[in-house]
């Protein structure tokens, strides 16, 4: 029981991270109907920028942890957003309206480019990060096994929750959110009614990148090591989360992320660590076969 509870906590933490990345996939897919294959790399870049920001702050001499965290969060989101914007501008916008495979290939190329770019300029070795938020609460104790909820896990889950609330409000109430929803339903009609579609799409990429940046920061703090290759697997898992939750649906992406996190945590706890990545793919295949619209997705009508 205690073991189960511990895995639940771990899974929720992991799931929050996946969920944040999944939102980027689901929003982009909702609006322009393409898999932003480079999104995983954006998350990886977020992780790198966060580690660099921590180092710079350390050199400047900021030692008050909440201040350091807030500063790093803001800088990481800012700089990663620029990457998200630039990727869309360079690799996707010229291909809009082109045939279906072109943006996907371009995205794969972008993903390879970004991976190697980071590898060349930051080195291929793993980057360690000393634990910043230490300590935790003991939730439960039984039979010599303690269930611990570390402050870091608490921080991750709460930050995700806060971002989700803010984000949902943004989509639901602001003019930008309205424009976004309009583009999602019918891009041409939205353009006719005066919505600047290019701007909306750019902002969608910026928002997705900002959330991926937060996920990158979290993973840096949580695992304490990053390398240039983390984006690929995290990207595929987050995409699975987006599909599981129903692609195009924001709450779905979060729900899917948490489910994927839980599946992964329990699979590694009870079955085998080696095959934990396989478990995610198996889930993906099963969802697509039996419930292609996902848990919260709208059914797709095939038009002739």
């Amino acid at each position, binding site marked *: 029981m205690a073991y189960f509870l511990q895995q639940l906590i771990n899974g929720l933490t992991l799931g929050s991270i996946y969920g944040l990345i999944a939102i980027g996939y689901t929003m982009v897919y909702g609006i322009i*109907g393409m898999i932003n294959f480079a999104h995983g790399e954006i998350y990886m870049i977020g992780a790198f920028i966060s580690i660099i920001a921590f180092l710079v702050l350390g050199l400047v001499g900021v030692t008050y942890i909440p201040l350091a965290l807030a500063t790093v969060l803001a800088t990481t989101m800012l700089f990663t957003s620029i990457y998200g914007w630039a990727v869309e501008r360079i690799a996707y916008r010229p291909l809009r309206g082109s045939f279906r495979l072109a943006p996907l290939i371009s995205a*794969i190329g972008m993903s390879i*480019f970004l991976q190697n*770019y980071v590898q060349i300029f930051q080195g291929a070795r793993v980057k360690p990060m000393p634990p910043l938020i230490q300590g935790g609460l003991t939730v439960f104790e039984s039979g010599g096994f303690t269930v611990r909820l570390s402050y870091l896990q608490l921080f991750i889950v709460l930050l995700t929750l806060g971002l989700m609330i803010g984000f949902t409000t943004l989509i639901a109430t602001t003019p930008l959110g309205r424009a976004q929803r309009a583009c999602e339903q019918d891009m041409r009609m939205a353009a006719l009614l005066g919505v600047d579609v*290019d701007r909306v799409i750019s902002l969608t990429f910026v928002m997705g990148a900002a959330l991926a940046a937060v996920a990158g920061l979290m993973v840096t703090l949580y695992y304490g090591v990053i390398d240039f290759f983390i984006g690929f697997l995290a990207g595929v898992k987050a995409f699975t989360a987006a599909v599981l939750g129903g692609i195009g649906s924001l709450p779905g992406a979060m729900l899917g992320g948490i489910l994927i996190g839980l599946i992964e945590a329990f699979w590694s706890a009870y079955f085998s660590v080696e095959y934990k990545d396989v478990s995610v793919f198996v889930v993906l295949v099963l969802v*697509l*076969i039996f419930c292609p619209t996902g848990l919260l997705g709208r059914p797709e009508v095939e038009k*002739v």
Partner: protein
Amino acid sequence: MTAASGLAVDNTSKSRDFWAPLLKDAVLAALVAVLLALPLVGLQTYDIGGGALGIRTHFDWVAIAGAAVFGGRIALRMLQQLYRGRPRGRGRILPVLAARGGRPAMPITLAGLVCAAALPFLPFSSRYLIDLGTTVLIYVMLGWGLNVVVGLAGLLDLGYVAFYAVGAYTFALLARDLGFGFWEALPFSGLVAASFGIILGFPVLRLRGDYLAIVTLGFGEIIRVVLLNWASVTGGPNGISDIPRPSFFGLPFARSAPEGGTTFHQFFGVEFSPEHRVVFLYLVILAMALLTNAFTLRIRKLPIGRAWEALREDEVACRALGINPTTIKLSAFAIGAMFGGLAGSFFATRQGFISPESFTFIESATILAIVVLGGMGSQLGVVLAAILLVSLPEFGRAFAEFRMLIFGAAMVGVMVWRPRGLIAHREPTVRLGLQPAAR
């Protein structure tokens, strides 16, 4: 955007209207480049020992990046201005080929074939060149195999490398455990890979487009993870070594024959040379690739090939006409996978050693890039793209670490430049009515 609208103004204030937005645009682009480069290029992390990181600054590089983007942006705009209003692509060779339906004239095909076959015997050809040619041909064969799935049937497969791996491991295991040689194992490799194609095909048949891409990607990763972790059979990360080399009708290419046997050089009474095997491997893969091509070209004209193309164009219409999409898609997967498996088998025998590291996602991406960059469905495009993608990085060996960087950038660049591939060709082979519709 602003620059483009500024260019459309009348002639009186033309030069000012040209330069002002141009400069503004270039400055903005340079600013973005500086912001992009600042954290990741300008601040470099490095190990200072004891598991800690230090940081180095490279602000000069950031400045160079900004300046380069500024200059590049201006140059690009001026080029665009120069070419504005001219008909695109007139008189160039690629659109000419595309206009011919992607099929080059007979003399070109023949000349290409003769060049390819004669390559090992040319005076200037070195062992390095033949090796490179062999690698290019492996990718050509893989590209042609994947072209059946992606180009003809229109099913996007991001996990094609799985079949390549299955073929390679089938041969390696048959050779290690049952003592099979390359030629005996070849049909089995193809068969096993084809069965894997069907196994993958079943669950994903209902999926369309991008979903299919992700599931096939997942399948490719599953195969790789299994190969990596099932150490008792596959050798895990150490892979399988000592895979036998192919023989020439039973004559091995070796310095000394095994007991009671004759080697190639003894049989033909020539001096032993390690190059014989290299040339032989080159010719084998050339033959295999050409076989793939001939097969594809023929099957296009058979009912099943026609059905693939019809399915690609319109699945609903196909169903209405009584074509069963399930069997058609499965056959495309199986045949594509079979060629992947055959190529994998050749890869194993050429390398003599295989490990899961050779079958990563990047391979799938490369093969897919070859098909799409070449122009989906175009057989010649695959060859051009394979030569471009495989040999270009080889020439850039001087800056080897930038290889994949350039590769990724080239993928983006070619897509932006020619979204339909180098030789754009997606016309169905047949069409109702006499006049093919102009594109």
